[in-house]
């Protein structure tokens, strides 16, 4: 409950500041209308700084406490500077002859005044430099791998010496590791070939799970939406795709391009379908994780937005109760999606390495 309350408090501060920033920047609406869509989209998208808290000082000035993150741009050479230089998008940064402006968490090339040119659909026409910045998602990912490496190397140390009864963290992690090995890898992949893929599957499972959980922490240093970001899910699905197809056996490729035991016209049809299937499988992996995690974030944020949309504290208990239920569900979804992603990866690998016995 403590976290929820804190999250609620943070969200309130944030929503208010968002609101005013949006109003300032857009100049679309002069009143303080709360836009839940704006707030939610801001939350689930990536960011160039790590927001901790915002508040309005007594003099009416907005204060943002953020952790500045490194900006790395490739545009006529490499430019590295801290995101604090943008002053939350208020200032234009000059590097050499180029000017950069942070606008809606995207970096654009502008003139010295930071003019943003809009097209007819209100889309931004300015050029974008190649952006390799350490964004909030990257920072959150690095935090997660520090946690994961610490957890598992600490557990691994316990295994030195003679076999003994698992203790402490080890006794919590070992059943999970064995679950992935026995019930995911060994179930789906022929046992004599499975051992090669177990480290990949274990890493995949714990990476997704821990990052899902970090995403659920409603305050700094959590609340990132890494596993709900298409860039990450794409990378993971791509790795599964590469691992699957680079370990494909003769019989696997035979079944894709020249299905044995069926007439030739159907073989041709099947080879087209199977070929498309090669790509739809990882594509489904990518979308499933992204959609599930992002949906959870959107639902929880929407429930809190209710309070501000209705402009009533009376709705708060309902919001909090429903959000609490969603949090419980999301805890389950966090592990479930990690499990499903790992299981399907193992399934695809298992299909690829399987030797057909006729």
């Amino acid at each position, binding site marked *: 409950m403590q976290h929820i309350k804190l999250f609620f408090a943070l969200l309130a501060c944030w929503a208010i500041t968002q609101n005013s920033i949006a109003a300032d920047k857009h100049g679309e609406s002069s009143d303080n209308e709360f836009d839940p869509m704006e707030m939610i989209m801001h939350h689930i998208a990536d960011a160039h700084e790590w927001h901790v808290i915002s508040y309005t000082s007594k003099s009416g000035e907005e204060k943002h406490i953020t952790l500045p993150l490194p900006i790395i741009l490739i545009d006529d050479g490499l430019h590295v500077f801290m995101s604090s230089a943008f002053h939350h998008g208020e200032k234009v940064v000059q590097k050499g002859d180029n000017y950069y402006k942070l606008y809606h968490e995207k970096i654009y090339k502008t003139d010295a005044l930071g003019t943003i040119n809009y097209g007819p659909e209100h889309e931004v026409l300015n050029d974008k430099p190649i952006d390799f910045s350490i964004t909030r998602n*990257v920072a959150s*990912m690095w935090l997660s791998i520090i946690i994961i490496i610490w957890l598992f190397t600490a557990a691994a140390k316990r295994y030195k010496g003679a076999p003994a009864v698992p203790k402490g963290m080890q006794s919590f992690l070992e059943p999970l590791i064995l679950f992935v*090995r026995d019930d995911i890898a060994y179930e789906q992949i022929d046992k004599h070939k499975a051992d090669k893929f177990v*480290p990949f599957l274990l890493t995949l499972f714990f990476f997704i799970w821990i990052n899902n959980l970090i995403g659920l922490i409603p305050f700094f240093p959590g609340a990132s939406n890494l596993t709900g970001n*298409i*860039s990450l899910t794409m990378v993971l699905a791509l790795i599964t795709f590469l691992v699957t197809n680079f370990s494909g056996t003769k019989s696997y490729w035979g079944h894709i391009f020249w299905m044995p035991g069926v007439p030739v016209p159907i073989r041709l049809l099947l080879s087209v379908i199977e070929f498309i299937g090669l790509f739809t499988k990882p594509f489904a992996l990518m979308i499933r994780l992204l959609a599930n995690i992002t949906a959870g974030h959107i639902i929880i944020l929407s429930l809190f937005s209710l309070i501000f949309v209705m402009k009533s504290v009376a709705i708060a208990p309902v919001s909090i109760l429903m959000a609490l239920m969603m949090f419980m569900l999301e805890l389950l979804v966090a592990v479930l999606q990690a499990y499903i992603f790992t299981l399907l990866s193992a399934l695809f690998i298992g299909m690829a390495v399987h030797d057909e016995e006729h």
Partner: protein
Amino acid sequence: MGLLTPDPGLVFWSALTFGLLVFILKRYAWKPILHAVKSREETIEYALAAAKKAKAEVEDLNATKVQIMNDAKAERDTLIKAARELKQSMLDDAKSKAQDEADKIIASARVQIEREKNEAILQLKEKVAEFSVDIAGKLLEEELESTDKQKAIIDKYLQEVNFN
């Protein structure tokens, strides 16, 4: 559609990070953990098999022990029985031998006695004959003098006869 547009920066960093994570964890976590778990599983399996084997061996040993004890008991019984029989037969033998010996001794004693007796009787007879001849001689001498005197002489000589 900002949500569905991959961002090259994040793609790059996540691919790099995930690759690095797989490498580090494989080397420093999964390998030692999985190896230890596997060796522990093997140890447990081996220990269980060994325990099973040891149990079977103990059972075997118990059976052998019982067998040996039973054998020993049977042997002891036969030995005791044989000893008893031997004792009985020895006693019987000794008894019969003793009897025989005793009988023999008695028999030989009897023969001896008989022989001595006969010898004694023979000697007595000789002595009696001698005395009788002597007495008869003396009587013949005395007869020549008087009857009274003859009688006295006979008595006197009879008195002198010592049958011992």
